[in-house]
């Protein structure tokens, strides 16, 4: 049998499979008729052997390429991967991520670097004369001072609040994700963005605290501080995890190590984005309200408690599980 004859006899089956693939693609497995599925499997196996035949007999290049594509499409349909599993999100957000934050050295290092530089820069701005002007620039400082020269909430309107919320999401969460992405350069990029932000923010804090506008400034920044500053450090921690996986591969090749760690780092970065968005909502809507400082501080304390509860959730749940397990085993032994 000549090649042309083989192609001529098999061609109809190929075209059938092609149209079947187009029909099945995008359908969930439950909505495909069983006969359809059986037929698809049979045809796919036949095409696989056709491709082997094509490679060993030397079919014309166009035909071989066509078969390659057909097998690839079928393969992708049969071994399709999960897309979104919203059911798993709760577990990731409330169990996996907090446990990872507490267990990973990367997040602790990011926290330490951020707070160390932040406080250092703040003290520098308070006690050294020209420090804040050198770091931040004279014009930014005068702009900040004029921003907080009036009591908070003096000119805040519905429109400006929704606009500023949007802007904070866009700007802060964007910087967070950028900080994460730059972690791929062996973590150096994340550290750089983190250090820059820590020193910059520290200098502004130090300068504003020692300026006459300190009251207004503190009134504004207190409430959203816990979420936002945690999110900054968390983004950098996620980036550090990404970069560190290339340096310390624990026996894997660098590429494999990166791939194994990347999805966990991604979850950390996405959590940081969620924190950024929460912080932006507070910063846009609650912080500009003309309320006494005590209420603003109470908000900050509530946020901090929520964060701590969230971080300790895996321990709480695993302890409860262990307790219930041990009480069960006690019952079993009692019964015995």
């Amino acid at each position, binding site marked *: 049998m000549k090649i042309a004859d083989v192609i001529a006899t098999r061609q109809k089956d190929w075209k059938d499979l092609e149209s079947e693939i187009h029909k099945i693609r995008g359908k969930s497995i439950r909505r495909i008729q069983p006969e359809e599925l059986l037929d698809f499997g049979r045809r796919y196996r036949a095409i696989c052997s056709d491709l082997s035949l094509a490679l060993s007999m030397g079919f014309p290049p166009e035909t071989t390429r066509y078969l390659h594509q057909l097998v690839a499409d079928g393969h992708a349909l049969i071994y399709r991967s999960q897309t979104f599993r919203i059911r798993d999100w709760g577990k990731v957000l409330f169990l996996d991520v907090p446990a990872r934050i507490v267990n990973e050295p990367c997040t602790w290092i990011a926290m330490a670097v951020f707070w160390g530089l932040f406080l250092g820069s703040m003290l520098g701005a308070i006690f050294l004369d020209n420090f804040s002007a050198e770091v931040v620039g004279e014009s930014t400082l005068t702009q900040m001072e004029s921003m907080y020269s009036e009591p908070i909430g003096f000119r805040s309107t519905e429109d400006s609040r929704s606009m500023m919320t949007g*802007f904070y999401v866009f700007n802060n969460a964007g910087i967070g994700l950028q900080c994460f992405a730059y972690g791929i350069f062996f973590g150096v990029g994340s550290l750089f963005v983190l250090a820059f932000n820590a020193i910059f923010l520290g200098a502004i804090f130090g300068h504003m605290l020692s300026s006459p506008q300190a009251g207004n400034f503190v009134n504004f920044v207190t409430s959203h501080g816990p979420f936002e500053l945690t999110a900054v450090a968390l983004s950098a921690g996620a980036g550090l995890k990404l970069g560190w996986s290339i340096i310390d591969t624990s026996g894997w090749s660098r590429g494999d190590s990166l791939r194994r760690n990347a999805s966990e780092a*991604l979850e950390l970065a996405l959590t940081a984005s969620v924190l950024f968005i929460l912080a932006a909502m507070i910063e846009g809507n609650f912080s500009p309200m003309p309320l006494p400082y005590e209420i603003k501080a109470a908000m900050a304390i509530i946020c901090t408690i929520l964060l701590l509860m969230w971080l300790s959730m895996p321990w709480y749940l695993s302890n409860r599980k262990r307790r219930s397990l041990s009480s069960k085993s006690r019952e079993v032994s009692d019964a015995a």
Partner: protein
Amino acid sequence: MASSVSDARSSIDTVRVIITPENVRFDYRLAGPTRRLIAMVIDYAFILMIVFGILWISSLLIGEGSLGLVFIAFFILQWGYAGLMETFCNGQTLGKMAMRLRVVSENGLPINSQQAFLRGFLRTADLLLGGSTASVSMMFSPMFQRLGDRAAGTIVVIEQKSGEIETPAAVLTEKVSLLMVPASFRADRDLIEGLTLYMARRNKLSPARRREIAYWLARHFIRNWSLPTNTDPDQLLCLLYSRSVAEAPRSKGYRLKGEPVNQARPKEVVA
């Protein structure tokens, strides 16, 4: 699970070889940087269009406060567009659809949402210094992977148009006869591959060019079978092709073995 191999061919060609659990190997053609750059430009143009569209419509409808909405839309599009599109459109964004590209895992499977978002986020790192990090990464990768692709374990492949699978037919003129080829002749795999490649491109070449190219293969047969030196090399290859791959349509001058040979050209027949 599917595994992949690299062999001599895939390391030279821009081809990724995949071996399926059915023990079949198939190829993906990898996409080069230019095609992907154009796809990215299309995507960004689309994002900008959407953002300005929202800005325009919402400023007409809502007024000042709509700016917050625009910021959020821009944030979602900037960071989520690629991830969402590639998750729900099986590895394609609009730009990739236009350039017939698709993102797949290194093992040939469709990508999942994590891979899609990871490579979307890391695009920022890839575009650092005008995309120089992406170019360096792609240059040193056998599979044209930018940093995001390396982290997510993905490759970008060119989608084949499913189209012509017609076997090209050999065109035989009266100058040759099947009897020129010894009855014991059997083409091996390499020869068949060479012949089919030649036949696939033959129609795009001028007759003189055909003879020139075909000569390098045909001369061995002319020498070994002691054919006349003025045998048309192109026609000889067509003859070999029709003997081993596809029957030539019967045309003037085409004869089966044993049929009386055209008396006008008895010299060309080697009995």
